[in-house]
């Protein structure tokens, strides 16, 4: 086929309209979310003392941290789905949860501690945290990668890592309502480890499936 023939063929297909990447990503995440919620409802569930926990600012802070990861990660992943986009100028958005955590840790330090620091950090749920967040992430990660495949990222591994951050942030939001460890030190340690694992998986898979 010569190039003029190809060009004519592409022009004949001009009427085809693809949805925006944001629409595909939203749809894919909405399809995946019930699976993650099912894992949550089957194996974890909301902690029994939810009502009183909500009065604890450190409980609420967990959601601020996880959502400040998930939402900026969605925004940056959509930005990077354009081929000419650079991370520069957008990467700072991903530091929001880090900043929030630092403030929360500082706040906790200034209060009279109920438990020694190492105990707050190790907590009671570290193992559950390390398995539950990745497990609930997987359906969302698959959804995020499916949605982002619709884009044209110049760096597929980076885009995959962002899909990992999106899914880990959302899964951690679910997990936070189950976990009774509210110390920001616990969150900074175990949530971060779980997120790093999911992000690495996302980068690895993304480098294969997000090439266009």
């Amino acid at each position, binding site marked *: 086929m010569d190039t003029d023939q190809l*060009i004519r063929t592409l022009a004949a*297909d001009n009427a085809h309209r693809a949805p925006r990447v944001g629409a595909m990503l939203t749809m894919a995440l909405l399809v995946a979310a019930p699976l993650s919620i099912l894992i949550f409802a089957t194996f974890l569930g909301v902690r029994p003392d939810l009502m009183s926990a909500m009065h604890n600012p450190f409980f609420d802070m967990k959601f601020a941290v996880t959502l400040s990861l998930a939402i900026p990660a969605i925004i940056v992943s959509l930005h990077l789905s354009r081929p000419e986009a650079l991370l520069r100028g957008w990467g700072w958005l991903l530091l929001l949860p880090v900043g929030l955590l630092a403030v929360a840790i500082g706040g906790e330090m200034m209060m009279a501690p109920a438990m020694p620091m190492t105990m707050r950090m190790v907590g009671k749920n570290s193992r559950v945290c390390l398995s539950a967040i990745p497990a609930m992430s997987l359906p969302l990660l698959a959804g995020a990668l499916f949605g982002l495949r619709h884009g044209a990222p110049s760096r597929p591994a980076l885009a995959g890592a962002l899909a990992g951050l999106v899914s880990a942030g959302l899964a951690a939001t679910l997990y936070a309502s189950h976990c009774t460890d509210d110390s920001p030190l616990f969150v900074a340690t175990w949530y971060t480890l779980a997120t790093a694992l999911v992000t690495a998986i996302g980068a690895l898979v993304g480098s294969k499936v997000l090439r*266009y």
Partner: protein
Amino acid sequence: MRGREDEWTGLMRSAMAGDDAAYHRLLRAVTPVLRAAARRGLARAGQPPDQAEDIVQEILLAVHLKRHTWDSEAPFAPWLFAIARNKLIDALRRRGRRIFVNIDDFAEALPGEAPQETASAGEVAAQLDTLPQRQRDVLQSIAVESASIKDTAARFSMSEGAVRVALHRGLSALTAKLRDH
């Protein structure tokens, strides 16, 4: 250079608004620039320039299938060159060379440097033969025999909608095969 790129942006806006002729003109206008850059990239990687047309066709297919990622408020050229650069790197890598492709290769390419003739390329044609029958028939009819969608529909007793679907699926499948082969 600036004038040329503004013209491209205007054509692409019209194309996205449904003007098929503008789209055709745009693709024809960018092809010599892409060809010159592909030849330069191949030369720098020590590869024969006769593969340039395969790369040009791959770029055109990617531009077509990813055009919804172009922001109509943004200039078209940086978007185009990013896709072209990406595809050129991929193509050179597949041929066993890692090479840094400078974005300026595209921005500086003058259409005059490239031969204006339309060259035929082997890879798209070869992958075309591996498509499902219906997609292959439709693509052959429209690409090679220059039939319209309407004539193609009549010829294969399909609805025009079915021809459009087969056409788009065929182009998507072709692109996936070129990427993964």
